[in-house]
């Protein structure tokens, strides 16, 4: 066992980092809950016939007037909080992860190419990144939303809200990947194994993706976790501002937005339970990100 751990340093560190373990368990539980939501949730918030307004505004089980069927109470639509949260986390994670994937592919691709070719191509990519940076995420989301509105027929817009939001978040995250990939690529470009590959006459794409990419994955992985957290938060913020998802396809952010109406009304659980879940999820991901950062940068240990 020790020998195995010795060989896999990351794993060894992990076993000895209690915060990371707790974070991983929390994140894993939420993710499993999200994945298996259709099987474990009491009601399906998307299926309007599965719940009734009649059950609305029930408090969590430990409060007076609760219904034991709904452990954490219900919202103003009569939806079971736990079910909403599981489905919400599912949607948040789907959006977060797909946005992240798009951003990573786009950003890493451009960053690698910019770092590899340098010169004019690099300058152009970086100027585009500048433009992107000058447009904060919220504005980007609005722009994408606007395009979708203009270009897509109304009938499909609703169905594409998730896609639009995902794209908007992806666009506001790719710069991070591009910059990191570019900087790391610059470092790798000076390494002799890259020179060796270029001298052999290998295709630029092969040099970039087969040789350089595996060597810059470390910092990218760190960005990925941190940005997954940002993506989830960004989605929540956009939903809070009312430019995110509609209320009938509730992500964690939308649930919080809805819950915000009950901030002062006494039905605290509608706001604070989803918020707690969101924060727990994001904190866990961030802790894992921190942990990864330490693994990839041993000198900070």
């Amino acid at each position, binding site marked *: 066992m020790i020998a195995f751990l010795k060989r896999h340093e990351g794993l060894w560190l992990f076993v000895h980092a209690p915060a990371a373990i707790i974070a991983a368990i929390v994140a894993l539980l939420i993710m499993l809950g999200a994945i298996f939501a259709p099987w474990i949730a009491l009601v399906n918030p998307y299926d309007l016939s599965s719940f009734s307004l009649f059950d609305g505004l029930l408090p969590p089980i430990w409060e007076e007037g609760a219904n034991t069927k709904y452990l954490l109470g219900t919202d103003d639509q009569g939806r079971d909080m736990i079910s909403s949260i599981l489905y919400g986390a599912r949607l948040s994670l789907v959006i977060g992860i797909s946005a992240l994937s798009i951003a990573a592919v786009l950003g890493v691709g451009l960053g690698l190419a910019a770092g590899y070719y340098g010169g004019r191509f690099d300058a152009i990519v970086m100027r585009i990144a500048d433009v992107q940076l000058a447009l904060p995420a919220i504005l980007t989301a609005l722009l994408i939303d606007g395009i979708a509105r203009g270009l897509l027929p109304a009938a499909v817009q609703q169905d594409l809200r998730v896609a639009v939001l995902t794209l908007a978040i992806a666009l506001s995250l790719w710069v991070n990947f591009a910059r990191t990939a570019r900087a790391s690529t610059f470092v790798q470009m000076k390494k*002799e194994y890259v020179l060796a590959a270029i001298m052999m006459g290998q295709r630029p794409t092969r040099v970039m993706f087969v040789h350089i990419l595996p060597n810059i994955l470390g910092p990218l992985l760190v960005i990925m976790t941190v940005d997954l957290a940002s993506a989830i938060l960004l989605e929540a913020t956009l939903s809070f501002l009312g430019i995110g998802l509609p209320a009938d396809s509730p992500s964690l952010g939308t649930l919080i937005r809805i819950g915000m109406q009950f901030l002062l009304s006494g039905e605290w659980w509608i706001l604070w339970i989803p918020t707690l879940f969101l924060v727990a999820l994001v904190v866990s991901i961030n802790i894992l990100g921190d942990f990864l950062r330490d693994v990839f940068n041993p000198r900070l240990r």
Partner: protein
Amino acid sequence: MLAIKDLCIKFPSRFGDFTAIEDVDMTIKPGEIHGLVGESGAGKSTVGAAVIGLLAAPGYIAKGDLSLGDTDLRKLTPAQAHALRGDRISMIFQDPQTSLNPLMTIEDQLIETIQAHADVSDTEARARAVDLLEEIGIKNAAQRIKSYPHQFSGGMRQRVVIALAICTDPELIIADEPTTALDVAVQSQVLDLIRRLAKDRQIAFMLITHDIGGIAQIADRVTVMRQGRVMETGETRQVLGAPTHPYTRALLDAVPPLDRRIARFRVPDESSSATATATKGNQAETWLLAGEKHAPMGLSLDQITVQFQGARSALWRKPEVFRALDEVSLDVRPGTILGLVGESGSGKSTLAKTITGLIAPTSGTMTLGDETLPGGKARNRHHPSRQLIQMVFQDPYSSLNSRHKIGAILAEPLWFYGFVQDQKERQELAAAMLALVGMQPDAIDKYPHQFSGGQRQRIAVARALLARPRFLICDEPTSALDVSIQAEILNLLKDLQSKFGLSILFISHNLAVVRQMADDVVVLRNGIIEESGASEELFERPTVDYTKTLLSQTPVLPAQWQSAT
């Protein structure tokens, strides 16, 4: 004065404590230069760090005595230890480029250090600093003291570092590889300076270095370390002249002599590993020799000039053009080794990159065999020279892709150039080639980080050979390695060259190494060829002043201390 007794240093790790230094004894008297030599991992720097109280974080002194004069260094509080630093013990680091705070002027750093240990006014401190700089050999010090570190050249910067180390009149200076990052000429000046300071100011020096030649020149006493233990200690003349310990002996044997050419280095444990895998290596040998047209191929450069556009510094001024290579002509005869010698910045690496097509020459022609070699982008990815010319790089740690297995790294040329179609066959041949370069064939399933620098350099050589090259460029292939490893690699290269009749361009800043390897030599300086000719001829009778100076400044073991081979 400095007395180290039974020093034992441990680094706690997750799998128990690791003992870095064990039972080290050493004394250094005022005015004495005490050389601490050994290969990497010997624990030299750890001893130095322990003395000055700056042991890297988890490390601790497990036992032993450390005293400076009457002061017991181990009993000091952190504050006392810090007050002592600079005041009584100071330190010089290896790289003058990074040893100075880039954001502060030399003046600020000097005054700050002086005032940290003496209650003097700014003016007084400045006067002292200027005097010191003059003494150290910086002209026009009153003016230049206002400069920032980046405005000094490497040698000058190391002088400033020394000035900073001695400005508080310490009793002991720990010099950790003070000349390693410097060119030969500057090296000898810095060594001279150290010798002068020891003599004039009676400062004791602990000179940590792997450069036995340098030690031989200035150290009064020498301690040889290996793996945290002292192997041998004593007067320099005695230790280096008549070593009693076999390790010292082996170490000295591995140092390439400058004054003569030896056929092979004596490396004690080489033979055993080589024979064990020799039979397996035959397969690779056969394969290499079976390559069509394996006749050696020469390379000639004719009037190659490479210019770089400098950074544009002003809008209305044209950016300055920097000439990295100026009408360089040279000829690598088929089947021979051409040694290319030069200090840093002389254009050696630019030349290698030009030949490999990474840089386009501004003018001039290159010829490989009978064909003209297009330069830069004009040479497309499928040009035959991509295969015919291969390169062995300087840094074995970065020349292998750390995310690929050795097998993948070695099979790549076989696959890429279409030599072997079958995946299994490729792995087999790769393993055979490993055997040929003196490695265990099972290495193909491991990753580069599981190997030492010397082993990696062998792998790099194997990779180059698997391209079936006709022309090999070795760019400082041993400068990152310890001497004993260097000796092994040089032996390997010699063997391979004679066996396969390769044409090699051997680039190095180390004259002694070049003498051992090259048939012909070219001396490059600031992009211009100073001198060229047959190797032995040139080393015996250099005609150009620059070559002569280079030769005279290279620190060597006195001939009488070297063993006859």
